[in-house]
């Protein structure tokens, strides 16, 4: 009987020691309930936000911009999925029609904006900087979303459970997105502490100002909003007067030296962090290139999909003196008839079969000058406008007064548009420029005569998006 008692006691002991054991916290991740306690949590969340920012923009931006401008054609490989972009015949299966990555990023911004104010920081300026960056990233993202899709869900509250309000949102009116972008920019600007510069791959106050100029120029020209031009001008002026940036003397250096003084805002890329860049599609698979031409001059690394249209070649090589041409795209002809075309700008270093580590430019000082020129021209100061264009042109052509200051407003607009195309090729600007200048149906061959097609400039929403939330209505026209 004693033995039974002992056994019984051991069982009782076992049970009592067991019950607490079913409370186990994760070891290699952080449980949601354990996050947002210290300044370090907030800093980590900020880095996480930039990681998601890279995921959302570093490769995808091509679908929305250059791919639609008529600059690209098919190269060696023929990826049928890309044809809808080249032809501006998008459908709900087109690559880029899924907005998942953008909203994952927005949710991270919304988490930061919700929780960081509740954390006690020893350094309040650090707290403000994180918040300013989150407002900036959110504004940047919505600025792209609203231009790509028009009406989009405007979400400002992070999702933390599945019974939350607005989990299945509708597409809100465009004005809601613009209101949010404006107020986020105001918040970012006012919160951003002075005297805390960061590397260009994190947002500085100048990045906020550049976005502001970009947004308000669009509001002025496309949405014809009164007073927007003044706001844009103030933003550009603050970057110009800040004296922190300057044009690099050589165009090549902008893309080969990642810590140059022209960069205002970039996306950081490195082989082990960011994976393969979309730019690999402009270079060549080793198996397709005779060995003696490998990286000499034909850059190898991936399957060549993109070649460039006559439109692109004629534009970039218009003036043989333009040092940008050979730094943007290049070609080799092996007689009698083998032609290799490739992209140069972001070809980066060749390591581990691929090319990866080229930081992507979102804003650089050349654009500050071009924005300034565009604003001056809008204000009727054509001589001043040409002066700013010529600062960029001087580096390109090696000539101090490349464009004539005595040009008309229309001529200067044409020059700005063309110089932007040359300067920012591959940088995701020209498509938006064409819309902002109202020239898209005229300049893009595949859009000629299609002005009356409903929403032809906007994107359809991916099948997958509607399948998961049938409150989302397909973009009319698709």
């Amino acid at each position, binding site marked *: 009987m004693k*033995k*039974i008692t002992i056994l019984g006691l*051991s*069982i009782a002991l*076992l*049970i009592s020691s*067991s*019950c607490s*054991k*079913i409370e*186990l*916290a*994760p*070891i*290699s*991740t*952080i449980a*949601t*309930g354990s996050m947002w306690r210290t300044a370090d949590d907030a800093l*980590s*969340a*900020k*880095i*996480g936000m*930039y*990681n*998601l920012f890279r995921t959302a923009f570093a490769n995808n931006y091509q679908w929305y911009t250059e791919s639609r401008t008529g600059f690209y054609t098919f190269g060696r490989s*023929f990826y*049928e999925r890309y*044809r809808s972009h080249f*032809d501006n*015949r998008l*459908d709900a299966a087109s690559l880029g029609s899924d907005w*998942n990555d953008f*909203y994952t990023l927005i*949710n*991270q911004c919304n988490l930061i904006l919700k929780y960081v104010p509740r954390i006690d920081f020893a350094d309040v300026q650090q707290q403000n900087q994180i918040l300013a960056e989150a407002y900036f990233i959110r504004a940047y993202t919505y600025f792209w979303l609203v231009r790509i899709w028009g009406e989009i869900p405007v979400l400002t509250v992070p*999702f*933390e459970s*599945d019974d939350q309000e607005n*989990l*299945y949102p509708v597409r809100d009116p465009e004005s809601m997105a613009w209101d949010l972008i404006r107020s986020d920019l105001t918040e970012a600007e006012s919160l951003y502490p002075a005297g805390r510069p960061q*590397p260009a*791959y*994190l947002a500085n106050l100048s990045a906020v100002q550049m976005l502001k100029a970009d947004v308000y120029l669009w509001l002025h020209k496309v949405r014809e909003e009164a007073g927007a031009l003044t706001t844009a001008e103030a933003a550009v002026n603050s970057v110009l007067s800040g004296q922190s940036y300057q044009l690099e003397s050589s165009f090549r250096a902008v893309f080969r030296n990642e810590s140059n003084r022209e960069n205002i805002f970039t996306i*950081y890329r490195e082989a082990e*962090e960011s994976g393969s860049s979309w730019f690999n599609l402009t270079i060549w698979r*080793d*198996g397709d290139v005779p060995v003696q031409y490998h990286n000499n001059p034909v850059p190898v690394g991936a399957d060549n999909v993109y070649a460039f249209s006559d439109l692109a070649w004629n534009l970039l090589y218009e003036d043989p003196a333009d040092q940008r041409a050979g730094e943007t795209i290049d070609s080799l002809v092996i007689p009698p*008839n083998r032609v290799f075309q490739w992209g140069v700008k972001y070809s980066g270093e060749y390591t*581990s*079969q691929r090319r990866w580590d080229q930081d992507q430019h979102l804003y650089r000082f050349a654009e500050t000058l071009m924005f300034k020129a565009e604003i001056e021209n809008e204000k009727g100061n054509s001589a001043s406008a040409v002066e700013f264009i010529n600062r960029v042109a001087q580096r390109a052509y090696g000539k101090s007064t490349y464009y004539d200051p005595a040009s008309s407003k229309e001529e200067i607009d044409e020059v700005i548009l063309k110089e932007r195309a040359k300067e920012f090729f591959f940088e995701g600007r020209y498509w938006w420029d064409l819309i902002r200048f109202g020239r898209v149906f005229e300049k893009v061959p595949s859009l000629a005569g299609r002005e009356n097609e409903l929403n032809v400039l906007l994107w359809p929403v991916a*099948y*997958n*998006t509607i*399948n*998961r*939330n*049938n409150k989302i209505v*397909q973009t009319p026209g698709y």
Partner: protein
Amino acid sequence: MIAYMLSAQSVQVKGKVTDSHGEPLIGVNVLSEKSGTGTITNPEGLFGLAVETGDWLTFSFIGYTAQRIQVLNRTELSVVLEQQANALDEVVAVGYGQQSRRFVTGSVSKITPELIVDRPVSNVVSALQGKVAGVNIFSQNFAPGSTPNIRIRGGSSINYSNNPLVIIDGVPRSMTDINPNDIESIEVLKDASATAVYGARASNGVVLITTRRGKVSQRPEIVFQSSMSYQQHHKGYPLVSGEEFIRLIRTNAVGSPFESTLYEDGPASHVNGDRSVFTPRWLEAGETVPAGWQRMTDPIFPDKTIIFQENDPADLLFKPGLWQNYHLGATGGSEKIRYAGSVGYTRDNGTVAETGWTRLSMASNVDIDITDKLTFSSGVGYTNTRNPTEASWINSIGRQLIMAPTWRIRYEDGTPVPGFNATATPPPFWRETRDYDQYQAKLNLDGSLIFRPLEGLMLKGNASYYRSDFEDEYFEKSHFFAQNRNAYTNQNVGQTRQLEAIASYNTKIGGSHDISFMAGISDLFISSRDLSLRADGGATDIIPTLNAAPNKINASSVKTEESLIGMFGRIGYIYEGRYLLQASLRRDGSSKFGAGKKWGYFPAVSAGWIVSEEPFMRDVALVDNLKLRASYGFTGNNAIGAYTAQGAYSSVRYARQAGLRATAIPNQNLGWERTGQFDIGVDVGAFRRKLNISFDYYTKITDNLLFSNPLPNTSGFSSITTNIGSVKFYGVDLSAEGTLVQTANFSWNPRLVYSLNRNVVLKLPENDRDRNRIGGYSVPGGDDFGGIAEGEPLNSIIGYKADYIIDNRQQAENARYDELALGISLEDGTAVKGRKFPGDYEWVDRNSDGIINEYDQFVLGYTVPHTTGGFGNMFSWKSFSLDIFMDFALGHSALDRYWMYYNGNGFIGRTRPTKYVLTDSWEKEGDAATASLPKFYVQDQGMQSNYYRDSDQRTWKLNYLCLREVKLSYDLPRSWLTRSGINSVNIFVAGNTLAYFTKERHAREINPEWGTANTYDAGAGYPAVRKFNFGLRVAL
């Protein structure tokens, strides 16, 4: 004279055979060992036989223990055969105990070693295929060391695990851990009354494996088993030859957007040089055809001759391989100490170059009676496996097989040719540039103290420890596509600690009340640690380890822990030996669930009625046993991540800084998935046990499904793990075995297993879609399809349906706009998207809008078979026995992606079509009446996507019948062995997976066991293996 002398020595013996009640036994097999002659008993149980002096007689009868009797000088024998335990009163393992088969009220299938040993398979799961009612076993992959999937009654969940709980000697482990020769019995627990005592983990059924133990006062028995197989792979689609390939591509490329490929290095070009990846080129003037090359007239420039090398990737990949198994075991016992121990070695050389698998296994069970009331039991099990393998079968088999047969394998200097990109290489290049090996070790230690203080009372304390080690190592030499010498190694250590205390008590009250109690608690703790290391930049191909690689790219470790506490009990009551009642309850707490949801209760009740024991049935001679059973109960499933409920922020990197991002949305309400199962069954034994049938009907409804519920892609998360929805699995299990013929020298025993399992989704989370559909397509205006939806079965395959093949221009002009057709004219090169041409499939317009797009797809089939089973026939003639076993599965389909790669001529004309393209394709107007395949295009994906879309045209119905096992064995006559000290020698030849029979011819050209919506899977592609086996079993 000789005849006379023989007959002079023979004596006529007669006698009677009865059972233990004195009833005569009819049809008992009586066999003389010396002469090999025999007879059977007549309806009065009587027999007569001529025997020689000193002869032995064997009396055998199905369901009874055989007896061997020496005649000596007797002429009249009276023989009593005892009913065998494994007929009706065999002991069956149930959760935390044992029961007599007679009184089991749940649905439990028992598999004895005869059905699994001496089969040329490496693991026990393979040996069970088609042999257990209600259990579906299928292989996705046949690589050495791989284990088939196992589903009991279809599983229980939609998108969480449907794998059963496997308990080996009381410890949760994996079925691959043990050598089949070490198994004493396998019990498959199917209904809730059998499984509910395992509570939280039991929804998908439970497999109990008991390993061999010694018995009290058992004579030492040593058994050595050895077998060896020759194995070869089952062949895939017949593919075009080199010459056929060149002709097909050249003639079809002309005028197409891909004509230029004929003028650059390529598989059907005429300009390849010595360093090109492909061989074809024009024969130069005056040149003779090099040795080993073939020639053909250029089909597009008939004055030219093309020469090429034919290098069939299949010849380079596949080779016959050897499979071997050796096993030595000893069992025995004295009054106080019982033991069983073994060592085993299995080696499978595989059928694909540079693959293989070896296993070393050891097992030891020792039981010691310390006193009359106290027993100590211990068990040790260890297996160690090693296999050279591949990280992905897609790159190492699939993408190599689909390539043109005209490629170059080696340059003139003997170095392997790299192929045209890093993941489409000829087999030798791939295998000579990389090494991938996996190692596993599993160790199990357990010890129990069993105390029996009183009659009927048992107290047991058990502690066990289980550790599994997995390691892999990868090294890529410097080669054409990568010079960085990538190297990685991963390690996983899984540890399980289990403490259990169990008490049981059986008693009889009066003459007619049998009562049993069992209660216990269990404390389970599982931890896992993953380590992964990656580096590159080494300077040499000779050192594969990471010490030689200076660039340390990744060093990561991840740990998880899980704990489960269970308290359980069971009460059984038997009245008059024929009315059975049982109830059980388990309470489980799991660390995986949300704060207030950690504990769950799992009750079950069952009842049985042994009708044949009723007085009114005793006189029904035809029926020996008739039992009705019914049960209902609840089980759970906690197969989710250890910390899913708590949400997660995971580490990421940006600009070399560590960051955190929200990766999983928390759900503190996450709780048990609960399956309620109803089972009604009947067991029948008839015609003096010559026919035994067991039949069950069941229905299982799982509520609060652990469900990965997709979230809108505006939420920042792809899904949330939650408990919503309900699914029903229902079906029938039938097993029957019998004795069709039983004579003195010959017997024929057929057996049949038939399982029907269907499912339907009952409830899904509200999402405002038609039938709350998840996934699939939301069609504007309704008629949604695909994914999963209420009222529909799971596992559907979605794709387009071909209506007919467009035969002429008129039909093409009238054809519907097709979103995937590029409409590139071969005549003038113009591209008009959506345009169709003669030879294209016209697809069915589901929504009749005149446009073919994603909304025009249909359910083409299901990936899971509704019917599975097997049937076997065992024939015995004297000392020979022949067992033929076939298994089958019906109702599943596969959407084959390789068909698309082959016939769609992908990779810009580099893939190799099947022979069917030559014979069955549409080529010209009028062919549509007979052609089953569309017009062949170079790079179909860049043209009309006839092959390059999911469709019924490459969805194969996989209904199959497999000749799984044929085994002929022979027992050497005992007389040969009497002086050698050897007890018995059995030699056998066997075949395994000899042939698949399918109605759809393409089904047997892929793997007919694996239903899937996408065959292009990294875990699939190693073809099925046919084995021819020879072996022997010697018992001392």
